[in-house]
């Protein structure tokens, strides 16, 4: 595969020297019908000087104050060397090829050319509009930092740098996309992150041959290990503190320009049920919440299918007293249980989708309409039994406890084939489905690392990072399954010591 690497500037590619008029013709020819391209020519001591840039990509007041003023007020002739030396701007560089000029022009550089010089000088005076930092919307947390990434890569890098103030932190830059390239940053800790992982990630991104990159979530789909699976293989987060924590534990984050989410890799299935809040809570409460989420996931996948299977085939499973209530409420319903369940699951999914698409103000009413009115009416109309409403509501609620929106959606989708299997084969069908999922998960990898680690391959020492949490003096190791360069976070014996006041 070909690499989309920028060609080195060789002298034989150079388009200079040329006259200013020639240059104008050449550049404007590339920007046909582009009214925002500004190309001005100044006469200074008998020499023509060209200054050009795209107006809205550049801070025009800075151009005037710091570039044009010194440029036009100097006594004596300019050369590219003297411009670099004397103009009070520190981002100057020289270029020779047309390709680079165009590239730099697009990202907001200002070019100054003295007629018949051998090179052209450019300054980075870019202007980039971005929104203010705001609270996280998708991954809300009660405790901990309340900041989410924005679309501006610079801002995001700024936040990460402030979170990990270490010279070990690497923010490697890559460009992806042939037609309209975008900046992609690989973030990792030099002294901790596993080199193989970093190389794999770098190679996967470099090898991409695509015309353009829409978002970090699409990048995720381009570089993931298996494109056929329903499970997300990388964690997509909007929380800088999550990125900072993950990176400092030796994993890799990827940021994409204009995308408010970061990709975390490698990820395990269990990491999709970890919230940063688990860390901010005390260890026992954190463990409880984490275990709660695992149970919730299981409930969400299994509960509705179990209802369908029990009511259709396995009446002997239902406790007797429940059987009576269940039988009475089922007696109203004209459909077989599988149709009944699918109707209601579909209804819930419609409500969720409508609530997500509509503006927030209208979205809230949808919740009320769905929850109260439709739920009541459906039972009264005899479309479903009242017990199924509880079952479906419980499993929908459970699926929303997943901190990752991607994983939550996956789990809700898995439910449908499970319901069908339960409706056709009963509990055997559910077991078949669960076994299928388990085998599938066992085979999956994330950035080449097993998706189910540390359960498979089993690592006793890693369980306390994944399934539950322990007090700080037991959490002195990093995640061994991902083979970080430096396994120890701090000294164990020091962690156990208590330091009271010395007398």
């Amino acid at each position: 595969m070909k690499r989309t690497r920028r060609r080195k500037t060789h002298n034989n590619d150079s388009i200079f020297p040329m006259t200013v008029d020639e240059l104008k013709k050449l550049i404007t020819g590339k920007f046909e019908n582009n009214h925002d391209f500004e190309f001005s020519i100044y006469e200074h001591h008998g020499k023509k000087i060209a200054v050009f840039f795209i107006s809205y990509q550049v801070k025009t007041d800075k151009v005037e104050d710091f570039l044009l003023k010194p440029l036009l007020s100097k006594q004596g002739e300019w050369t590219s060397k003297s411009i670099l030396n004397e103009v009070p701007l520190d981002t100057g560089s020289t270029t020779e090829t047309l390709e680079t000029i165009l590239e730099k022009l697009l990202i907001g550089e200002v070019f100054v050319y003295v007629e018949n010089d051998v090179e052209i000088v450019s300054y980075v005076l870019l202007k980039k509009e971005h929104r203010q930092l705001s609270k996280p919307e998708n991954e809300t947390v009660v405790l901990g930092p309340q900041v989410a990434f924005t679309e501006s890569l610079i801002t995001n890098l700024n936040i990460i740098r402030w979170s990990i103030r270490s010279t070990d932190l690497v923010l490697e830059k890559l460009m992806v996309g042939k037609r309209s390239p975008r900046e992609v940053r690989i973030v990792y800790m030099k002294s901790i992150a596993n080199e193989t992982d970093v190389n794999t990630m770098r190679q996967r991104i470099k090898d991409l041959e695509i015309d353009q990159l829409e978002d970090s979530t699409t990048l995720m789909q381009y570089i993931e290990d298996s494109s056929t699976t329903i499970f997300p293989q990388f964690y997509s987060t909007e929380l800088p503190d999550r990125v900072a924590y993950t990176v400092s534990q030796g994993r890799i984050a990827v940021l994409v320009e204009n995308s408010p989410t970061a990709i975390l890799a490698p990820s395990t299935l269990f990491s999709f049920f970890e919230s940063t809040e688990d860390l901010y809570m005390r260890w026992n409460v954190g463990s409880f919440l984490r275990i709660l989420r695992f149970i919730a996931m299981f409930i969400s996948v299994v509960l509705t299918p179990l209802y369908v299977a029990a009511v259709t085939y396995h009446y002997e499973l239902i406790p007797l007293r429940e059987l009576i209530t269940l039988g009475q409420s089922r007696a109203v319903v004209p459909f077989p249980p599988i149709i009944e369940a699918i109707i209601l699951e579909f209804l819930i999914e419609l409500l969720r989708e409508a609530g997500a698409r509509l503006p927030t103000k209208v979205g809230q009413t949808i919740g009320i309409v769905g929850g109260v009115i439709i739920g009541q009416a459906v039972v009264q109309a005899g479309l479903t039994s009242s017990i199924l409403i509880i079952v479906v509501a419980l499993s929908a609620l459970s699926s929303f406890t997943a901190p990752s929106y991607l994983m939550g959606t996956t789990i809700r989708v898995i439910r449908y084939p499970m319901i069908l299997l339960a409706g056709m084969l009963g509990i055997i069908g559910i077991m078949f489905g669960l076994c299928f999922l388990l085998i599938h998960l066992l085979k999956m990898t994330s950035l080449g690392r097993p998706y189910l680690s540390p359960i498979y391959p089993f690592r006793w020492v890693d369980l306390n990072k994944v399934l539950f949490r322990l007090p700080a003096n037991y959490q002195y190791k990093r995640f061994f399954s991902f083979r970080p360069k430096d396994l120890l976070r701090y000294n164990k014996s020091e962690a156990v010591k208590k330091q009271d006041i010395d007398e």
Partner: protein
Amino acid sequence: MIKRIIIILFLVFSLSGCVQSKTIERLGIINTRGVDLRDDNEIEATMVIYKFDLETKNISEIITGTGHTVKDARENANLKTGIQLASGQINLELYGVEVAEQGLMRQIDTLVRDARVSDTMLLAVGNPTASEIINTSEKNVGTNVGQYLHDIIQQNIKTDVLSRVTLQDFMHMYYDAGHDPFLPTITITEQKPTITALALFKNDKLVGQIPIEKAYQIAIFNKKIKSVALEFPIPTKPFEKYMKKDDYNDIDSDTFYALFTALKGTSKTKMTDVKNLHYQTDITLKLSLHELTKEINVKGPEVIKLLEKQVEKEITHQYEELLTKLKKLNSDPFGYGSIYRTNKADGKLKKSEWHDKFPDIEVDFNVNVKIIRHGTIP
């Protein structure tokens, strides 16, 4: 590859027959079944079923059917209803005395075979017939007879009056050589179903009954008993000194009654002489005194000691009486045979062999009673 998988999946779903669905609203779920023998030697099954209907509020209903086998009787009953009778939730099976006397294995066989039937379902004997118990109960108890009957037995198992009598326990005792099964007997007293006795079996045939008050003596061999109430007759004479003064003169009877609850009751049996079939059984009871029919001042350790001694004497007497009766019936619900088998040189024992030997065993009952609570005394 993918094509092949699609074809296989298509064939799997199109060619395989559907599993027969049992949607609950179309089922008549049998909760309790009574099995009786009719004069023409056919089985009559009386079933309490649940059916779910919008119109009727009464969910339980009684249906009967006849046939040569229990399943056949169910199919026969099926002809009388618009719903399919299903036995997966059967909770209690009652056998008429006549059926039980002929041997229960023939009837239990179908329950054991059927994987849908729970092993924890209860078994009981209905005196005189199962159908009479079910029908009379329905008239006097009202709806949900099945659950009512089931709860009567369940409740008494919980309070340690009985030991567990599930299908699994019956099968275990039946197949364990040197151990005979037992079941509670339900009779109608004052128009209500009541547990009155413990039916004793020899192999699977009903041979006799003991009153339910004595069932604890067997229960203590199977489990640690914790909450059963026990009442003993106690001779008055040794307690004369401790009686209240004003009560002293009118001794109208030579026995009085004391009611205790067992806080902890355990048993331990050893074989002292394998050849001559001698056993020693230690019964340890920790009791809490609840009620006395005579006013006796139980303050002071010597009264309590005396009371303990009298109770020990009474229990030993009861056990000896029970054993004589069991020997006569040739039924061994204690499981002395199993202990014999484990002590035997070759460790093998046939059922018939034990039934030959059981009348000859001798047991020393060593009862140890401790009254650890007696409440406050004014």
